[in-house]
């Protein structure tokens, strides 16, 4: 079967759908009065208390086994909850990475002790995680990383630097891709993933201001950090394969479609119930594309639920999704005459300013457009 025909239509099952109204009702109260511009932060909005309350509802780690604090619900139950959180603009950042991929990683590759230690707090919404891949000299060329962990008795000693680590300053743990042996020319080998407790001595976390003045990503420096033996997750030397497997989770979720949904919302309301033909066409086109992307994303979720590893399909969803997210502020400019505002202004002006400034990052984080298209081309047999 060709890769494109793997997008087979998948309906969310009724028992997963049954959750949706409950989530909406709960969020309506939780987020009452929350300004649109804060909702627009989407999965960048950090609120540890909110994550705890969400955890208490049982809506984090939903697909995980009960014995680790999870709820053994299907993959699709999680999908429903997550897309409703994003659509409402809930501040999910505190548990986002942990729920989306770290917990999956620990479940899949972790030892029993690691699972027992890490999964229950994640499910309670108390444990925040970040991803340490990029470094000063290693962006797209991830396999060139230099941060290194040396064996030291039972444990490890870590030296190096991670860059652009989203949310590291608020997190308890980082899952880092590091070099654990020098394999020379075979550079994809010799890498491993480590779980790093960010409270350990020798770790310095420096927030980096982004162009909008916000502080979300960080530089994290490791200076002779002593790590216990159980910092290693999965097999030594398998880090690259583990990272690749994670990407299907990272790239296909609803957050690759809904990062700028707040702007669609304010645009629709700014235009009002009597749009011009051009406004209606622009909005209708967006609505059509979002529903098509959602169908694709759910098809990928179906593949993940079936235990497949749809890396090509997830990459396809991400590249298309960020394209849409980035086009949204351009389209808003095209069909309304409203100036962006970072101070004062009405909801649409504020959200327009915020999303316009964030948009360039959408096709950088999680792999650049060029890298994604390279992956697609490889899958198609072009390279």
């Amino acid at each position, binding site marked *: 079967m060709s890769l494109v025909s793997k997008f087979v*239509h998948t309906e969310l099952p009724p028992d997963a759908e049954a959750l949706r109204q409950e989530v909406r009702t709960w969020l309506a109260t939780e987020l009452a009065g929350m300004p649109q511009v804060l909702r627009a932060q989407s999965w960048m909005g950090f609120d540890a208390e909110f994550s705890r309350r969400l955890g208490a509802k049982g809506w984090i780690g939903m697909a995980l086994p009960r014995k680790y604090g999870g709820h053994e619900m299907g993959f699709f139950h999680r999908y429903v909850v997550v897309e409703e959180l994003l659509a409402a603009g809930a501040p999910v950042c505190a548990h986002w990475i942990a729920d989306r991929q770290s917990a999956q990683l620990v479940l899949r590759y972790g030892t029993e002790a690691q699972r027992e230690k890490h999964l229950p707090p994640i499910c309670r919404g108390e444990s925040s995680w970040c991803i340490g891949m990029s470094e000063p000299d290693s962006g797209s060329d991830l396999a060139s990383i230099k941060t290194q962990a040396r064996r030291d008795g039972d444990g490890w000693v870590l030296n190096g630097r991670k860059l652009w680590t989203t949310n590291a300053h608020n997190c308890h743990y980082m899952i880092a891709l590091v070099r654990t042996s020098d394999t020379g020319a075979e550079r994809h080998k010799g890498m491993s993933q480590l779980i790093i407790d960010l409270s350990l001595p020798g770790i310095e976390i420096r927030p980096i201001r982004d162009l909008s003045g916000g502080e979300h990503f960080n530089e994290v420096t490791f200076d002779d950090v002593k790590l216990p033996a159980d910092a290693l997750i999965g097999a030594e030397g398998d880090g690259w394969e583990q990272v690749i497997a994670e990407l299907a989770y990272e790239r296909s979720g609803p957050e690759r479609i809904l990062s700028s949904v707040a702007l669609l919302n304010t645009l629709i309301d700014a235009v009002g119930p009597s749009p011009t*033909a051009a406004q209606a066409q622009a909005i*209708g086109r967006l609505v*059509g594309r979002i529903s098509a992307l959602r169908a694709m994303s759910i098809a990928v979720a179906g593949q993940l639920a079936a235990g497949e590893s749809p890396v090509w399909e997830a990459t396809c969803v991400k590249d298309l999704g960020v394209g849409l997210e980035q086009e949204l502020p351009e389209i808003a400019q095209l069909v309304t005459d409203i100036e962006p505002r970072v101070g004062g202004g009405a909801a649409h002006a504020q959200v327009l300013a915020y999303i316009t400034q964030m948009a360039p990052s959408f096709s950088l984080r999680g792999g650049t457009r060029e890298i994604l*298209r390279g992956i697609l081309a490889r899958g*198609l047999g072009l390279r």
Partner: protein
Amino acid sequence: MREMFESTIDRLLADHVDPALISRAESGEWPAELWAAVEETGLALATAAEEHGGVGADWGDAYVLVRAAGRHAAPIPLAETLLANWLLAQAGLEPLAGAATVADGRGLNMQRGAVTGRLAGVPWGASVRHTVTVTGGQSPQVAVLIDAGASATPGLNTAREPRDDLTFTHVIPEAMAPLPAHLPPDVVMLGGAMIRAGQIAGALERLLDLSVLYANDRVQFGKPIAKFQAVQHQIAVLSEHTASAIAAADAAFSAEGEGLSAFRIAAAKVVASEAAGAGAAIAHAVHGAIGFTYEHALHYSTRRLWSWRSEFGSQAYWSERLGREACAAGSAGTWPAIVSGGFSAHVR
């Protein structure tokens, strides 16, 4: 049933449809042998009711037939016939023997059971015996019109597929029954847009296959052009458009419940129509001059895409329709509509 449909139709069309056959169809010859082969499989009756000798398949299964027809650039009204027979089944009427077509008949005048007026751009209108239409104003009827009773002005789309204007003067339909309540009077527009979206998805699949093959084959600067990153990325984008059209059309065909999902069809036609234009442009760019010749088969697919995207409502038509509903529903109603596949329960 999908798998069975898919393998049957794919084999049949691969055996019969080649550039020579498409060319003959373009010069006005009805591909009788191809149609006879389709009829022999019973697939022309796939969507007809079982009690009338049909298969009783739903659109979710019939999707692969429509997509394959698009993939192979089959110059026959297979998708139209499936829609015609489905509509007849919905109205409790018998399916038609032979190829048939459909037309939106809301502009026709119906008086004392006789139909007067013009149907514009009817696919294969003058080549097939019957047009199934929905007409009748306040009490809409599904009506079977005999095309011989009309005066026909021939027309051709960019793929030189017949798109004929049929004018009827006091013609009594061969069969007629009230449109069931779960179907809207514009059901032919909806069904037509859905089948075109499915055909577009298929034609894009063909473009993707051809482009990958050609890029690996054509050597310039001492290596296959597939090795140039700019070419790789263009084809990657083509694959994205193809995947979107496939998924959006599948969602429309697979909508649950009786009737058709106006929302999903609108979304599918918006997305597929855009993908059609963008995809055709990339495929031609990759193929260079050879792809611009009549000799090369690429244009059989691209010329279809350039018309299919506008037929039964262009991207402008469907996006405006969807956008007006979104604006009327406001932001509070739009996300729920995306999730449930409709702006309100009755529109579906």
